[in-house]
């Protein structure tokens, strides 16, 4: 009992960190501010563990309880309180938020080294952690919404952290606006709950869900789903996430991989009784949006050159898996994948940050290669992350993904097929990334003496986006490896110093996360229900709303084998294309085919090939992006049209008043029945 009273500490510590940094951040400076923030997160993690232990002590049926701190908004009959809703789900979320969060804070101490706004960065990080914890712990929809908006705002601030760069600032802008669309859905849902149930506290919503009419439940569920796809970057509102990679890498890891983007999944899991009441089309819609997003984003990831963009699309894709799981009623696998994903995706992002750091802010994978020699720890941990996401047993990703695919199979084999293809693509593009970055030849040279070359490098970074076009040229450069080493060559990246391993503050979190990514699967082992720790833990939250599947063990094993084979196939293809050729540069034909990976994909996979991936990319850029911008253009146009009425002539305005008066008079007199 005493342990459970510590709940308030979980969000309070990051908040305290935030306030302290606001007051004395500049005084603390580097690295004091970073350590303070990290300590607060670690403390929060400690509190969470304490609460977790306290909850474990209780019998299962008593594990859900609300704790009201104070009356927040006494207005009319809707007294909305400020309190925490502690249950296995929120505690599980808090555990990995604070745990992974602590590691990322620690990592940031090294990563943000030398930044002029060092303390400000940690101030935002702590504020983010506070908001995220409020989102998860809040005992009513409004409190969750506040956290929801809070994380959005922090994300906005952090993406725009280097706000002098117009591209980055505008990425923040996009995130802000897209999220508002999702938030609109959330707000509608809140008001619908208020109208239908007269309350928005989870206690009453979840217990009252059964009394909702089907239409109301559908409306609420659909609106929450809209909110969720905005925050969790699902089709078509995902556009902000890849752009959000403009922010510092720890931000990408914390916000855009591990925590914030999963809040949509959390929300849908939280309100599972409402989804259960809603019309039957809701769940398949969620599943198909998830599956579609997963596949779609994976195809885009295949053709990305920016090391972080690959991971960004990969995140969108993995979130798609979670939605797929929610859609088929597999809440436990969704949460399971959310947790393992937090481990390995944070690991991959932090690893990529370490690479970028070591490569002196280079993000283009075509200018890397062979880095395992320079940064062994990063490489080793990154490889762990890669194997995890590729679904290679016994790494954690295998278990969670397999579970989702299993439920998908039980629900609708078509969903399973989409999931499987996605798994293959995932393995492929992740392998591609690993091979391009850590293996093969070094596609850069080190020239510590010539300062002038750093300028060349800086100029090269600018056209990273147009790099697709220079692909051919680069391939030719590699065809003639003897010239590739020449520092004078325009297309070869020149570093002013050798790539280096990152400091311990950065590698320690990598190692820790790698450990988690390896063993994370242990919380929910397949085949025997005795080992379904997570499912047992979450049972009080989900009750009967969790889908029950009846699949023979043989089928289960078969599905798992197929999934593993798909993953291995993806790796093999990537190996053949990106590595074989490099090891064997004497075979120009293979090399050529290999480098032109688009053609290779066509021949190997018999799939849509480059055109298909390009099309996906183009669709992303033009249609979806365009639609988002188009809404803005529509608003502007209608405003522009109205502008004509605002002519500046006082007599026109007077006419408007007179006309309004006539309309009002006419309306009122029309009420008179003669």
């Amino acid at each position, binding site marked *: 009992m005493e342990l459970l009273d510590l709940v308030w500490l979980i969000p309070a510590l990051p908040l305290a960190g935030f306030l302290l940094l606001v007051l004395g951040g500049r005084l603390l400076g580097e690295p004091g501010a970073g350590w303070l923030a990290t300590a607060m997160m670690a403390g929060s993690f400690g509190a969470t563990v304490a609460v977790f232990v306290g909850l474990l002590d209780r019998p299962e049926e008593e594990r859900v309880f609300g704790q009201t701190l104070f009356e927040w908004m006494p*207005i009319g009959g809707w007294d909305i309180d400020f309190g925490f809703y502690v249950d296995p789900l929120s505690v599980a979320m808090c555990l990995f938020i604070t745990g992974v969060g602590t590691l990322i804070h620690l990592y940031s101490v090294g990563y943000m080294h030398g930044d002029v706004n060092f303390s400000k960065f940690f101030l935002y990080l702590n504020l983010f952690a506070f908001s995220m914890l409020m989102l998860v712990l809040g005992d009513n929809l409004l409190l969750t919404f506040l956290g929801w908006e809070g994380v959005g705002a922090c994300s906005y601030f952090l993406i725009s952290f280097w706000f002098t760069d117009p591209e980055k600032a505008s990425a923040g802008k996009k995130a802000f606006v897209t999220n508002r669309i999702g938030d609109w859905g959330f707000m509608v849902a809140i008001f619908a709950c208020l109208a239908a149930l007269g309350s928005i506290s989870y206690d009453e919503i979840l217990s009252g869900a059964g009394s909702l009419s089907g239409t109301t439940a559908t409306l609420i569920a659909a609106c929450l789903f809209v909110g969720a796809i905005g925050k969790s970057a699902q089709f078509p509102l995902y556009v902000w996430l890849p752009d959000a990679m403009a922010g510092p890498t720890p931000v990408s890891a914390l916000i855009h991989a591990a925590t914030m983007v999963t809040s949509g999944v959390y929300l849908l899991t939280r309100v599972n009784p409402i989804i259960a009441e809603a019309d039957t089309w809701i769940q398949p819609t969620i599943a198909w949006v998830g599956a579609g997003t997963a596949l779609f984003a994976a195809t885009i990831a295949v053709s990305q050159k920016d090391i972080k963009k690959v991971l960004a699309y990969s995140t969108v894709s993995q979130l798609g898996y979670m939605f797929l799981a929610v859609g088929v009623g597999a809440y436990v696998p969704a949460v399971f994948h959310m947790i393992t994903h937090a481990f390995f995706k944070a690991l991959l992002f932090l690893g990529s940050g370490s690479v970028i750091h070591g490569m002196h802010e280079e993000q283009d994978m075509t200018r890397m290669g062979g880095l395992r020699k320079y940064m062994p720890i990063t490489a080793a941990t990154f490889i762990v992350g890669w194997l995890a996401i590729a679904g290679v047993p016994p790494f954690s990703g295998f278990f969670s993904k397999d579970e989702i695919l299993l439920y998908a199979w039980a629900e609708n084999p078509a969903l399973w097929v989409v999931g499987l293809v996605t798994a293959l693509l995932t393995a492929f593009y992740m392998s591609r990334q690993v091979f391009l970055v850590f293996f093969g030849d070094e596609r850069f040279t080190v020239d510590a003496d010539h300062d002038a070359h750093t300028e060349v490098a800086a100029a090269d970074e600018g056209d990273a986006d147009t790099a697709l076009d220079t692909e051919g040229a680069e391939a030719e450069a590699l065809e003639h490896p003897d010239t590739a080493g020449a520092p004078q060559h325009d297309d070869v990246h020149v570093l002013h110093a050798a790539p280096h391993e990152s400091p311990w503050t950065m590698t320690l979190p990598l190692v820790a996360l790698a450990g988690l990514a390896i063993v994370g699967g242990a919380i929910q082992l397949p085949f025997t229900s005795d080992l379904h720790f997570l499912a047992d833990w979450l049972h009080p939250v989900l009750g009967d709303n969790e889908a029950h599947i009846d699949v023979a063990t043989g089928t289960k094993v078969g599905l798992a084998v197929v999934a593993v084979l798909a993953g291995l196939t993806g790796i093999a293809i990537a190996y053949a294309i990106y590595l074989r050729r490099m090891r064997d540069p004497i075979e120009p034909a293979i090399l050529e085919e290999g480098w032109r990976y688009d053609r290779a994909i066509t021949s190997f996979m018999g799939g849509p090939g480059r055109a298909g991936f390009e099309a996906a990319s183009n669709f992303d850029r033009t249609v979806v992006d365009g639609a988002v911008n188009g809404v803005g253009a529509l608003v502007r146009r209608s405003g522009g049209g109205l502008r004509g009425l605002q002519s500046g002539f006082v007599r026109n305005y007077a006419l408007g008043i007179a006309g309004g008066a006539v309309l009002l008079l006419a309306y009122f007199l029309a009420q008179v029945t003669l």
Partner: protein
Amino acid sequence: MHALLANLTAPLQAADEAFDPIPTPEIEWFTIVPLLVLVGAALGLMTLTAITRRPLFGGFYPLATSVAAIGAAVCTWPIWDRIQDPERGPFTALAGAIGVDGFSVFMTVVICSSVVVAALLADGYLKREGLDGPELYVLLLLSASGGVVMAAANDLIVLFLGLEILSLAVYTLAAMHLRRVTSQEAGIKYFVLGSFASAFLLYGIALTYGATGSTNLVEILSYLTQVALFDNGLLLAGMAMLLVGLLFKVAAAPFHAWTPDVYQGAPSPVVAYMASGVKAAGFAGLIRVLYLGFQTYRVDWQPVIYAVAILTLLVGALMAVVQTDVKRMLAYSSINHAGFVLVAVQAATERGVQASMFYLASYTFLVGGSFAIITIVGRTGDDRHSLDDYRGLAKARPALALVFALLLFSQAGVPFTSGFFAKFYAIAAAVDAGSYPLAAVAMLTAVIAAFLYLRITVSMFLGDVDDADIPERRTLPVPVGAAIALVICVVVTLGVGIFPHVLTGPAGDATAVLVGF
């Protein structure tokens, strides 16, 4: 000598005896102390200036004005105390001319707050523009006294007089920067349209008088409850005309067209007052008329407010997005905000009144702070208001940019700021009253308007900063008064955003006792 005097006065005494003395009503003085404080301070300031010819010390006028406004607000305490006493409750005073209830007290405080903010802003502004003098402060106080009258008005004639007191002073203030062509234009546009609209209002009073035989809202209410006036065109036409005048004052579409022009042209501190105090007074009048006098005719006016609210929300949001002048943007955004208050008003419930009171109170500080920044950035001549003038502000004056961003986000309805709860309550009130489409439109326009606030913020924080320009911006002077005003506004915005009950509590207490409700 005495005899002569007696002879001279005899006829007068005879005349006195011929008539009954008029039984003048009892004057409950304590109920009008806030009003007397405001008017007394204005007249005192004027007299003092006539004697001394220059302020007693620098910053005397704004200080005196703020003290008077704060004093007026403080003087509402005994009234509030008495109203909250369950044994006594709200009452009418001065022969039924004013309703002394929580609502009037609350709105009085809101209006006084807007005076404080505007007066603090005006200090630096007047010095900068070379317009030194007490007139602005005097007119501000007098105008606010009109607002206070409106907030308490229990009689349509009193309401009308309050409105005229409020408006005439503001017309003059809008035109006060005589060197600016746009200020003159703002003055005359506001004046012509304002007097046009108040003629409609007056005609509405006349028709209502014809239909009910009284101009007193309580009498109207009791008459309408006793004598069912079904299908009474006179009454309905009167209501329509009254709405024209009041909706004009709160800048609701289609009576909004003056707002952007006047806001853009008028001196910035005056606009701060117009957008907060004048608007609050306008809504106070509107709510009094609709909720008190015509509460039994709810079914007739509710759809009208509903439609006007939708139009206002959309016009405000859509037009704001296409502007390039920040002052004009905020003018349109104030129209959008008025739409939100109307969303609450149309609910025709107690919760609706609470929500609109909360909205007006928090908006007063939001808009006051925003126009404080605009005043500062406008620089000498009060004409640097384009988006370009805000480019790179974050680099030159980070604190200023941060505060502005906060206020703008609050206007956008971002959580942890007062603006969020303001919008939340307004929409919740509409949902509670079953107006779902309206609530949806309101939320939609909030999304659209978010573009606008973001646009300003982005240009402050990003902007291809012309480095040559920064030193000049770094010297942007922030007068003491404006700084104090900004601090007040930020504290209120954040404070209410985190602890909304500091405002919902009084708002709730205030409406429970709106006379006749």
